[in-house]
């Protein structure tokens, strides 16, 4: 099991459970750092004081009101959203790769993100409010997955393959529809809004965005973590699962349902952030191996940390926001290549 890395790179050897715990704590540590970083300069000490001020206002008595509001009203909800959304993408990507037994699928395999993109685009075109856009994205995400899922029931053959195919079909249907909406959109206002949404952003996060996202994401994450070893069995195949006392069909339906809700809740707030759900599971496997008991928590931690890092760059580097969809690749690919070089493991 030990990776066959050259001796020179084996400086620190950590046990896999330890790595899992580090990966799970990493996003919290990063979140603390991210709280202190932004376009507006607030010192680390002041940030800590501000964060303690809800407990006792005396801690932040001498700090300007603007700084307090920035940290508590603007940065805090955005950082929490990044953590939840990143964790959701990481875990759902891992879950989908397990049930489809395919390392090249991600959360969007059944069209949830594409459907949500269409939902958001149509709401933007109809001049919907912020909330209407989110709700429309969420509902169309669910609709897309329902179409893929029930569509695959029409055809009696190897269900997994048909489901994958239906996912691809539904996905391309919705991307065509989105392209049509973009074509119809007013180039002065709705078109840039749609484009920006499709590239993903956490700019508009407020505390009001969080309760629904947190409820869905946390429930789903706990559920996946609890499933843990069952993913291993499911990824072996239906026959093996049955012989081990698990109903693979029910289990897969539950996982797909949970993952769809989580992804839809995440993208309806963040816009389309592809990639994370595809790559984070691979990064996780390189670090903790293919056992889902460890992989699920590892990808939760990695996903959260990665999206937080990306969003930090997006909001703090330049006066203008950089779309997340631009940064995931720019930052993620070098990171992943570095990991590949370090751990030449198979998965």
């Amino acid at each position: 099991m030990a990776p066959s890395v050259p001796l020179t790179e084996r400086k620190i050897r950590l046990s896999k459970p330890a790595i899992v715990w580090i990966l799970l704590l990493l996003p919290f540590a990063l979140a603390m750092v991210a709280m202190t970083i932004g376009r507006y300069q607030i010192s680390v000490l002041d940030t800590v004081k501000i964060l303690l001020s809800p407990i006792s206002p005396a801690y932040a008595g001498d700090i300007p009101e603007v700084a307090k509001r920035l940290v508590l009203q603007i940065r805090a909800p955005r950082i929490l959203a990044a953590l939840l959304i990143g964790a959701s993408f990481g875990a759902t990507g891992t879950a989908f790769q397990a049930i489809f037994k395919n390392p090249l699928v991600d959360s969007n395999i059944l069209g949830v993100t594409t459907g949500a993109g269409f939902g958001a685009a149509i709401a933007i075109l109809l001049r919907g409010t912020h909330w209407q856009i989110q709700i429309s994205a969420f509902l169309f995400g669910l609709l897309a997955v329902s179409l893929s899922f029930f569509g695959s029931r029409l055809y009696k053959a190897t269900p997994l393959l048909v489901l994958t195919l239906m996912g691809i079909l539904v996905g391309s249907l919705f991307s065509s529809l989105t392209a049509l909406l973009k074509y119809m959109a007013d180039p002065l206002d709705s078109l840039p809004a749609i484009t920006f949404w499709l590239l993903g952003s956490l700019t508009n996060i407020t505390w009001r965005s969080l309760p629904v996202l947190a409820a869905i994401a946390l429930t789903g994450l706990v559920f996946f973590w609890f499933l843990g070893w069952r993913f291993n069995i499911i990824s072996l195949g239906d026959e093996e699962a049955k012989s081990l006392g698990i109903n693979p069909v029910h289990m897969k339906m539950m996982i797909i349902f949970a993952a769809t809700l989580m992804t839809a809740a995440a993208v309806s707030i963040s816009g389309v952030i592809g990639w994370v759900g595809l790559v984070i599971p691979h990064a996780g496997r390189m670090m903790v191996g293919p056992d889902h008991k460890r992989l699920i928590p590892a990808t939760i931690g990695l996903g959260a940390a990665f999206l937080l890092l990306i969003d930090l760059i997006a909001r703090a580097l330049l006066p203008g926001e950089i779309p997340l969809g631009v940064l995931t690749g720019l930052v993620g690919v070098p990171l992943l290549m570095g990991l590949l070089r370090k751990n030449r493991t198979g998965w």
Partner: protein
Amino acid sequence: MKNNPLRIATVIILISLFLIGCTSTPQGDQTQLIETDNDAISVVEEVLEEDVSNSDIDIEIPRFTIKADVNLQGELSALYSAYFDGELPVFIMDDPDLLVTAAPEIAAERPVVYPTFLPDTILIPQIDNEDIDNFIQFAISPDGQQVLIEIGALPEILVITDQAGRQLEIHQPIRQVLSAYGPATAVIYSVNGWDRLVAASYLGARDPQGAEAMERIDPRFPELVGDDLFSQQEFDLEEAAALEPNLIIGASRSSWIESVEQLGVPVFLVEAETAQQLRETALLIGELFGPHSYAQAQAWVNYFDWVIDTIQKQWSENPMEPKPQVLFSGTEPLRVASGDMYQTEIIESAGGISVSAELSGYWNDVNLEQVVIWDPELIIIPPYGGAKVETITESQEWQIIDSVAFGQVFRMPKLVAPWDTPAPDSVLGIVWLAELLHPEIVELTCASETNFFYNTFYNYAISGDEIGAICTLN
């Protein structure tokens, strides 16, 4: 083309009325004097005096008399006989009904545009007379241009370089124009070329108020196909061919240029992204449409410069007056205008500083933290794309910005074309913002300039109610 039957009918009626008048009323005393002035010009002067009742010379009563320099009489005779079916004009030296003279230098301060039928040559009616008004309208119309081209007074082919740097040879006069670019359409309206449009893409005429106002300005607006078929991105070739335009005007960044050129119709490209480019656009489009439109374009440019200079002067006479920091937010509150955009020029011309001038490109997405750093004293939102003042003022998060907490968020007004876009109307955006930023020192007011602008350039008698609705802050 539509007007022709009506016009011919009017002319026939007028002629028959005239003939009836001639035959039924007793002939007045008409003396024909032949004078020779210093330049040895023979001028026919006729005197119509009621008390002189006996006449021995029997000639027709002219419709009206004209005073013109001798070297313009050929052109005027051609126009006159073309419009009045072969009749000849009567030129006199003193007390004419219609004065033809060299154009005075166009005043900058709220310029008056006289009917200009040849470059720098204007027609000024001295009495109130329908024939004269019709004649003037004819003289500056494409039909009048056609007459002047035939006698060589105006060029048949206009060689002109468009704003994409392409040299074009354009047959004059232009009768049917297709404008596939909103700012160009606004320019065409403000240089009196609107009745030659066969299809046009508009700025700000999609929302109900904009469409209603546009219909008041131009009753043909509902029938003019445009916005959906012709824009920077799209161009319906079949539809365009059916409209038989003899000039197509589009944006230099249009995606369709090469294919549209296959229609064999000249494609004139404009680029109006900055104030300087907009000035050029106005003058070029004016030139395309003929002497009168050119004079009107020149008047607009002078007026635009005068507004900017006046604000600048009044501002600089008050050294203590600060330059407020302004944020121009877009269709989304966190989408802001970059330094390259026209909105930044408007803010600077109005005596403010654009906080987001450091950004480049088009609209930029920013976060609230960045807005906190900019700390604008004033936030302006545009009159399109569903932007609402309340979206910002009622947002809990935006209360972090002092100007929001103090209600310093305002929506840029518009009648049809938004005042923050590169259209002639944007001169009013500068006035409006200057009045808002420096109410104590800037003497121009939104109300007076709006009244002047739409009456002068759009030939639209804007009502007091409309002005009130436009110029009242939010």
